[in-house]
């Protein structure tokens, strides 16, 4: 599946300034791994021991992956995977 991963401003220094990265993947975790393969610096910023850090939220087409299958959540062709900081609100 062709998936678009949206990178928040705070992480763009680790992607050479890129805000949207197209990858091929079957799951959210696969899409993130494909992004890490291109920009290795991103991995340690948002993951710890293979899991997302606790203040990182990931959405597939607007839906929080914790309401789905987490990193195993399947992605459809053309899906948008959005990474956002979880430290807003109230």
């Amino acid at each position, binding site marked *: 599946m062709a998936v678009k991963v949206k990178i928040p401003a705070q992480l763009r220094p680790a992607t050479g300034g890129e805000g949207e990265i197209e990858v091929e993947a079957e799951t959210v975790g696969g899409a993130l791994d494909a992004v890490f393969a291109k920009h290795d610096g991103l991995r340690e910023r948002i993951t710890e021991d293979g899991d997302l850090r606790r203040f990182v*939220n990931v959405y597939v087409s607007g839906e*929080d992956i914790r309401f789905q299958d987490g990193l195993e959540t399947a992605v459809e062709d053309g899906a948008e995977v959005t990474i956002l900081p979880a430290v807003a609100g*109230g």
Partner: protein
Amino acid sequence: MTVTGLSCKECGTEYPLEALYVCDRCFGPLEVGYDHAGIDAGSARRRIQAGSSGIWRYADFLPFASPPTSAIEPGLTPLVRADRLAEQLGVGEVWIKNDAANPTHSFKDRVVAVALAKALELGFDTVACASTGNLANAVAAHAAAAGIDSYVFVPANLEEQKLLATGVYGTTLVGVEGNYDDVNRLCTELAAERGWAFVNVNVRPYYAEGSKTLAYETVEQLGWRLPDRVVCPIASGSLFTKIGRGFEEWRSLGLVAGGLPIFHGAQAAGCGPVAAAFADGDDVCRPVRPDTIAKSLAIGDPADGPYALDLARTSGGSIDAVSDDEIRAGIRLLAETTGIFTETAGGVTAATLAKLADRGEIGADDSVVVYITGEGLKTLDAVREGFAMHEIEPTLESFAAHVPERGAVAAPALTRMI
């Protein structure tokens, strides 16, 4: 006290005092840091007592190089001793901090005053927020008073009173199809694209500092002492944790002596991710989809959840969740024993106090401060159909025929539920 910078609560990385809220290195939240050295407790107290009669009297402990001014100054709301409530619950001493007595009738005036003053200092000309209702009222009002533009984003299905009490200030009110967490996600994305100060996104570290003033006032109003226990509502967990931070700061500076109060958190069962994590022994919260009448507390993915859990545990407290019926009963209990009419969030808090008393966790030897953070007139549906009105002709006969003596019950046919 001098404000020094922002630092990451997770990894300690330091940042300048700008419109930043996330750590680039680990994505943790940023918090304002101060240099406590050289503060003398006696002179700090005198400065406070000689200060304004609102939150700016605590300017030394807020994130400004020089004391701010604002068109609207919240704070110094009443701390009321509630003996009738205490007696009914079998609790030693209950104090109600009635923060509905703020300019837009909730504690959100405190956080907005601080966020707006900082936004202006940083050169912003537009403020915005993602809100469950009360923040919307406050942002719209404070922006109007300051003469700057505002954008207010709320779930479209909010209480009518909260929508009206926002729109009246002439803001751009945006009702989003979805729940608060959808609104918050949208605003997090928008904050990166627009040059606006979103009070609870890109200037959230400053916004959050405003809640410390509730701790400072409590100490001052109790005669420079700490409460034994507090009961406080939790949505994102910012209010709860910052009240804790406020007490800690003043203890470490010697402005007040004694142990850190025991912190009891209050959530609605229909949106209780922090209460659930507390019960399960988890240190992070699983997000939930809110379904409760306490819309002001309906945040399913609380940003400060981990820190709220930490405070409840380290202080030896708790985090409870109460049902919608308990919330309605909590509103009535507070109104009937104290004369204070609170909104659903206050119903959650009052119901939690009642639950703690019922469980014996708070008893005859305890003194407790209860944070009532919002106004009953904003959530009228919560008390609708709760009581009857006697409808009569304007004559003595009609009065005598229709209105029973005190203690007697009127025939249902002669009354109308309202």
